[in-house]
């Protein structure tokens, strides 16, 4: 049971987060901490690459919701890439795909920032 491991990488002014494992009430603190670190260093353009994310419960969605205002208030955005079927499904059940921009791949998510596309209103 690999719980959760979050690597981060910077590409220009964009911060990429790579959660590997699952995000639920047990592991969410770690995910929140990594988002927090980015915000504390004034990085507001975040891409969460969900390639290695096997599962997300409401705690994980709450963690994103808890940061999104600060992120967008600072002209940034939190965008998602490479969701597997299960994870995409959870986003859709909650209508979160209207709230967050979701891309098939990391490259496309990065490009969307470079092209200067805004957050969903």
């Amino acid at each position, binding site marked *: 049971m690999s719980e959760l491991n979050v690597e981060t990488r910077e590409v220009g002014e964009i911060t990429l987060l790579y959660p590997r494992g699952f995000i639920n009430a047990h592991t969410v603190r770690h995910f929140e901490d990594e988002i927090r670190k980015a915000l504390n260093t004034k990085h507001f353009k975040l891409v969460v690459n969900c390639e290695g994310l096997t599962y997300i419960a*409401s705690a994980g969605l709450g963690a994103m919701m808890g940061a999104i205002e600060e992120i967008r208030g600072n002209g940034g955005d939190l965008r998602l890439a490479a969701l597997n079927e299960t994870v995409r499904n*959870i986003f859709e059940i909650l209508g979160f795909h209207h709230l967050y921009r979701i891309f098939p791949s990391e490259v496309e998510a990065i490009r969307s920032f470079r092209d200067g596309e805004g957050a969903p209103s």
Partner: protein
Amino acid sequence: MSAARGQTGGRRERAAPPRRPAAAARPDLALVVPSETHFLVLIKELTKRMAEAAGFAAGVPDRVALAVDEAATNVIEHAYHGATDRTFEVRYENRDGTFQVEVVDTGAMVDPRAMPRVDLDRYVTERRTGGLGVHLMEKIMDSVTFQRSARRNVCRLVKRKD
């Protein structure tokens, strides 16, 4: 969803007399789990397996497992306020037409009517961070009911087999 909502609402009475389902069916499998978030993923996996064994189509077992994870998370966080020295029970019943999971805690009585309702439209515009769990449970399952029975809180999640 509307039917489920109706049923859920209907059972939201305070102080229901201790009652058991009509023919108190023996659960297929029951789990006694310490109130540590560490065990949530095991519950999720086990639930997925049980839902698979119940014959649900691909995708459904994952969602049912999420709903049960949310119910168990709420027991730890709300019924036990994060205390790690309690236990709770998860009981599975695979019947002809339905798959049922009960998450049972021994915490203080909860008034189901006091459980906040999430209006997702408002949620989305107001961007709150809580209240997603119960909402997910209700979106995923056909019925989600909370009952007080024999000094225990029983959260019953039912999914119809179609």
